[in-house]
């Protein structure tokens, strides 16, 4: 039962010129949510620390924070405290007092975004400040006591989530995630650096699997069988996988090239793979006019699933420590071969984008349906046309195979990555959010 009176702003609205997809009214918590998330997608792109695993972590905490803010003044929702590892009960509203849901959510997100992107550059800092100012203007029509009370609650929720995040093992990322020292595993099967970039001579975030998971019980809860045994023998399963990458690369169609680039989602040049899936949700939210409750529910589950996906995927990557196609093909097949995409600086098996996309598709299918068609316009501003998909799994499968087209993954990493993602995503699906 919704016991408290919710005070709206009526005509008090603020136009945020830089967010064209959805007209913003500060009284609309749904618009508050998507507006902040749009900025977050840019901050992910423009903050050097934000490699895909780091981005997934931020999306999880921001999603949970948004959910708890949206759910804080309702009686028909369930907190994620107690369901997510290590999350204690959150600050609660006073049931006898009046709050404004948009003000709560705005306060939560403004503080949380500032915390998670504290190391962004001067332009990001200005953008966050400008966003806070513009959103604040839209709330000035509220009674002062309601505004102050709502903002205090929102800040308390954000502070609670931020404090929780500091104990997960992933809060401090140095040198963009590349350790200063790292010992490579001996043997021809294992990963070696593939980049001419000096910073990338050690693998990205080798300890990421040690982070506390969110909904998944442990980093190895969705462990994978080993990849095909390493072999340089013609006819072996491993050689055959490498030949598939090699021959596919040589015969790439224009559509396959487009697919590879569409899902490339390079850090610092895109919102990263987890940001790509968040962008898809924001586009659907805009298109279908999802309210704040629905959007926050989806974004929280999606964020949790993707963060767990990277923890699980990284656990497998460093357990198997497999070399990249470019290393093998240069060694065994063709020393002059080059993949279409830039090979990421960490072990190959499984494919991170595949695990992530399997988890995302699992969550979104559970939330929105198995045959939920949508157009994905994430990269339109970068000159890549929108792509239509009949379902989330169709998109996930395309994202996964794009890594083979791009020459950076073998088939086993792609297919088993999707399997691992489905397993991990199921944990987020089981979260209870509504009474």
């Amino acid at each position, binding site marked *: 039962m919704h016991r408290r009176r919710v005070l709206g702003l009526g005509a008090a609205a603020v136009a945020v*010129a*830089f967010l064209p997809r959805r007209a913003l009214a500060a009284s609309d918590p749904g618009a508050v949510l998507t507006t902040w998330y749009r*900025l977050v997608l*840019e901050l992910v*792109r*423009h*903050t*050097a*620390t934000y490699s895909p695993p780091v981005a997934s972590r931020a999306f999880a905490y921001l999603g949970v924070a948004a959910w708890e803010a949206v759910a804080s003044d309702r009686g028909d929702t369930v907190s994620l405290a107690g369901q997510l590892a290590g999350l204690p009960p959150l600050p609660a509203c006073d049931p006898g007092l009046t709050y404004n849901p948009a003000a709560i959510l705005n306060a939560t997100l403004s503080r949380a975004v500032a915390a998670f992107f*504290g*190391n962004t*550059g*001067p*332009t990001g800092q*200005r*953008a966050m400040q*400008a*966003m806070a100012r*513009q959103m604040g203007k839209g709330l000035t029509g509220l009674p002062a006591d309601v505004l102050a009370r709502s903002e205090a609650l929102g800040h308390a929720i954000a502070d609670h989530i931020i404090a929780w995040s500091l104990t997960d093992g992933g809060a401090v990322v*140095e*040198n*963009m995630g590349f350790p*200063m020292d790292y010992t490579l595993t001996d043997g021809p099967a294992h990963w070696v650096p593939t980049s*001419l*970039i*000096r*910073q990338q001579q050690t693998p990205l975030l080798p300890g990421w699997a040690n982070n506390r998971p969110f909904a998944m019980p442990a980093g190895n809860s969705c462990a994978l069988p080993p990849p095909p045994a390493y072999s340089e023998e013609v006819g072996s399963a491993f050689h055959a996988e490498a030949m598939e990458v090699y021959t596919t690369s040589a015969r790439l169609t224009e559509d396959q090239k487009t697919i590879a680039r569409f899902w490339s989602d390079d850090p*610092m*040049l895109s919102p990263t793979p987890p940001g790509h899936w968040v962008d898809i949700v924001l586009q659907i939210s805009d298109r279908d006019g999802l309210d704040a409750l629905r959007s926050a529910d989806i974004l929280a589950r999606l964020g949790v699933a993707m963060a767990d996906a990277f923890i699980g995927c990284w656990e497998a990557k460093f357990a198997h420590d497999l070399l990249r196609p470019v290393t093998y093909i240069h060694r065994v097949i063709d020393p002059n071969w080059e993949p279409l995409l830039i090979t990421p600086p960490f072990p190959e098996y499984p494919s991170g984008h595949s695990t992530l996309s399997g988890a995302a598709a699992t969550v979104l299918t559970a939330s929105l349906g198995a045959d939920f068609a949508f157009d994905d316009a994430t990269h339109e*501003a*970068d*000159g*890549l046309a929108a792509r239509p998909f009949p379902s989330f799994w169709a998109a996930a499968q395309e994202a996964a195979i794009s890594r083979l087209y791009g020459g950076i993954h073998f088939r086993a990493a792609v297919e088993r990555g999707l399997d691992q993602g489905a397993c991990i995503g199921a944990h987020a699906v089981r979260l209870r959010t509504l009474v």
Partner: protein
Amino acid sequence: MIRAIGFCLLALPAMAQEVPRFVEETASAGLTHSYTGGWEHMVGGGVAVFDCNGDDKPEVFMAGGTGPAGFWRNDSATGGALTLTPIDAGLGLTAVTGAYPIDIDSDGITDLAILRVGEDVLMRGLGDCRFTRANEEWGFDGGDAWSTAFAAIWEAGLAFPTLAFGTYIDRTQEAFPWGNCTDNSLHRPDGRRYGAAIPLTPSFCTLSLLFTDWNASGSKSLRVSNDREYYKGGQEQMWHLPSGEPPRLYTEAEGWKRLRIWGMGIASTDLDADGYPEFFLTSMADHKLQTLVAPAPGTLPDYTDVAWAKGVTAHRPFMGDDPRPSTGWHAQFADVNNDARADLFVAKGNVWEMPDFAAADPNNLLLQGPDGVFVEAADRAGVASTLTARGAAVVDLNADGALDLLVVNRNAPAQVWRNVGPVGNWLRVALSQPGANPAGVGAWVEVRVGDHLQRHEVTVGGGHAGGIWGALHFGLGAANAAELRVIWPDGSVSDWQTAPANQAVTIRP
């Protein structure tokens, strides 16, 4: 024509890789200046160096950002301590991000192209270090952008140079600048005035431009280095500049490969003397050193990065205890020890309290060894300043044949160092041709000792927001003479001539 002399030119005499000592003379020279400002001056901070009073010791113009630009007459004694005297030359504009000297009207008096947050300004030199605004006289529309890069070249048959201006972010979009890069522009002359600016669309927040004959074809192309922090769908670019036709971008079908970096500055020289220049691109973390994959006539613009192999990644501070990645700005190839091999200076400095990048980020002075690999020497040379550098110039301020160093720092004092050696022998080469483009912009100068060849292209542009106008400097090692020739902008090639070391020479067609 220089006089022929009877030196015996043998192979380049061996010379140990000396680390010259630089003595900071900022205070004693009288240099008091800072490039100041906030967001709109987080980039820029260029320095222009050129002789405007005919004493062969170049004057100095520095961008000031929110403060006025500074201009100093160079009163240094030859071979002596540096003395920079601030004077009012009519150049004290505000909102200046950088400047490039160039003789636009070919009257033998250096002019100045000034980049600004707001209207760009062309200042015509009047002689004796006096200047007057010439936008109206030359029909130049300075626009109202956030200008951050410049390059110029004389296209065949034209009286004035074609000017390229690079711009950064649409500053009206301060809350959401990403994806809001404004167009660069090309200004082609019509007689002795400029026509309407030609937009170089698409543009991707450019921080350095350079006209270069990258493929030894005799035709110039425009290289563009762009800051990926702000563009969407962008990359590094190169434009064809067909005579009398609109510029057009090199495409993947022509061999251009997509590269996306935080492009801040371009330095260029022909490091391996194969007839094709290499390009050093400053960025954040790893820097790039590009060399052609297949340097031969008809080559595609297909470059490979040899920064690591050559020791110039300059990706993090080489000293101190700050392990975070570096941020590079101005870069310049210059032979600071006169061992006949181009060295490399890189100005370093955090953009603006970016915690993912080094705060104490020393400048690099990378000395090239006989094997073509560069070795860091900034600390040993005494120029490893950790102030927030932007623009710089490696230039001989006291006419002693040893290249000195100027650095502009953001929200911190500019610095100047005198190179007190030891250095080898040297040669300073100026070009002079009749008519338009008297200084031979676009020419290649070749200097050889025995079978050791050095090649420099005469350019206006590159670096970060500033450049040098004047003679080219060549180290000669222990050689007491060198042969030299010029490939002029029209493609004609002068005969090899011999010049004794340690003097300035002027080559004419």
